[in-house]
């Protein structure tokens, strides 16, 4: 704000004066921001540095003391592990399909709710967003036991009602099942954000367009969708962050199986670290996950970063 530094400010050599100037340049509030920044910096750097170190040594909790430097061996083993390729593909499929489902259906449902004032709209809104507030372990187990169960689940009953053979969802379509559960949790998030954004759409503009003879589809396409560009960007970004690390939903339902059919990267690394005790290989995997998240982050921040701050 008030950093009106003169272009020809005299150079003082006294260290105290220099420090004072540096502090002034940081602004009067620097000491209020620094706890947050320092803690987040520690939280990022210390574990990350340790992960980098562990990834270059042989480190299995079952064989303590045998910690030789092995270079890129851990990366080699992780990348050639039988679970890596399916884990990568499953991660991409999971993130991609849940994003697609939640954004497309989210826009349609939010638009539907805005289309007309009908009785009980407030309650409908509350019901629609509710799944987002259910904790992941609960939603996973509810779906597993009460809905997907091949004998007494609701879906089995529905299939039988129509004379079809009930499906053992988690065994026959493990990845699809996980996608359904995770979509059920994140579609409501998209609805919540998009509904709120929709309400700030200028009604007069809409009315004017309608008087000019624009049909509902034209209004949706030319007015509503452009207005939603920013909230959609937000939904994509936040969901990507969380979907890259889906864990509890897999842990409590399929345990990544059968085989690697529903293992994602997060679950694969957990499996290496805490079930097979191979710290070195898990660290290598962790770094690969960080690199992937960073690629996604760079792309997303490029797309959305300006969008987020430009308003202020």
């Amino acid at each position, binding site marked *: 704000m008030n950093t009106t530094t003169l272009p020809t400010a005299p150079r003082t050599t006294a260290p105290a004066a220099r420090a004072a100037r540096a502090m002034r340049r940081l602004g009067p509030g620097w000491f209020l921001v620094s706890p947050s920044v320092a803690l987040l910096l520690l939280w990022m750097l210390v574990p990350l540095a340790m992960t980098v170190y562990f990834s270059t040594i042989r480190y299995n909790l079952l064989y303590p003391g045998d910690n030789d430097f092995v270079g890129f061996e851990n990366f080699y083993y992780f990348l050639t592990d039988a679970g890596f390729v399916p884990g990568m593909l499953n991660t991409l499929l999971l993130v991609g399909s849940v994003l697609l489902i939640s954004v497309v259906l989210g826009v349609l449902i939010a638009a539907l709710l805005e289309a007309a004032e009908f009785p009980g709209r407030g309650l409908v809104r509350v019901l629609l967003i509710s799944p987002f507030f259910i904790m992941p*372990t609960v939603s996973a187990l509810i779906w597993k036991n009460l809905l997907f169960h091949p004998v007494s689940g609701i879906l089995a009953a529905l299939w039988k*009602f129509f004379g079809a053979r009930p499906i053992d969802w988690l065994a026959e379509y493990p990845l699809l099942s996980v996608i359904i559960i995770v979509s059920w949790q994140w579609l409501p998030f998209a609805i919540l954000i998009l509904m*709120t954004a929709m309400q700030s759409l200028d009604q007069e503009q809409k009315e004017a367009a309608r008087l000019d003879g624009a049909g509902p589809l034209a209004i949706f396409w030319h007015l509503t969708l452009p207005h939603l560009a920013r909230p959609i960007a937000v939904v994509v970004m936040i969901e990507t962050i969380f979907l890259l690390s889906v864990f509890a939903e897999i842990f409590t339902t399929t345990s990544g199986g059968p085989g690697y059919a529903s293992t994602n990267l997060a679950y694969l*690394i957990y499996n290496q670290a*805490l079930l097979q005790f191979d710290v070195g290989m898990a*660290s290598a995997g962790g770094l690969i996950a960080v690199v992937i998240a960073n690629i996604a*982050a760079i792309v997303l921040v490029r797309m959305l970063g300006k969008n*987020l701050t430009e308003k202020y």
Partner: protein
Amino acid sequence: MLTLKQSRRLTTVLTGTLSWALALLLFFPILWMLLTSFKTELEAFATPPQFVFTPTLENYLHIQDRSGYFKYAWNSVFIAFGATALGMLIAVPAAYSMAFFETRRTKGTLLWMLSTKMLPPVGVLVPIYLLAKQFGLLDTRTVLIVIYTLINLPIMVWMIYTYFRDIPRDILEAARMDGASTLQEIVQVLLPIARGGLASTVLLSVILCWNEAFWSLNLTSSNAAPLSALIASYSSPEGLFWAKLSAVSTLACAPILIFGWISQKQLVRGLSFGAVK
């Protein structure tokens, strides 16, 4: 040919019917969990699923001696509110200084904070686990409080920042003219004005902590496990326990669902990092 009024009414009826159908479809799993929690285990497992039954409170009445529910619930409360209080203590000053003493670095710092959320937890799982083990913090509430504070800090700073930005600066300047110190200015002027925004920040943080399941599953076992971990423990053995699971789940989710319903509009601001209001 329909008159304009008729076609408006038709739109309302169609929109309403479709919306209600979708809402009930999405809400059904929660409703079914609630219903199952009032069944006996045999009814819960019955084929075809029973919609009509005599409700029993059995599952709720024996929830403590069957699962030790209250220990886990207390852990959840303690961890969620502990992490939230700690987070507010660190986030409010940061947001204050960013909103009212903006420098060239402020925007960059905010975006950098957001970027720490991009670090996938699995990337640091191993070192955090080993550090916790080293310091004797495995299966303690402390370790979860510290981690939850750190993972929610960026969201809290952003959310409070956007609320502070909406407060006219003249008010603070007037207080400063009257000779208020920085602390007085924050406590006596700023906090009362931003009360609503701060309350929604607290609520969002509590919700996120309460539902978190990656760290709670990996770092706690019996002592410090919150409800999210207790419920995961129902996943291992196959058997007749669905009514109990439903009762525990209903109790674990009810407070958060109610928080979410109350504050849906304010949560949007925090969840979207201030981009949608």
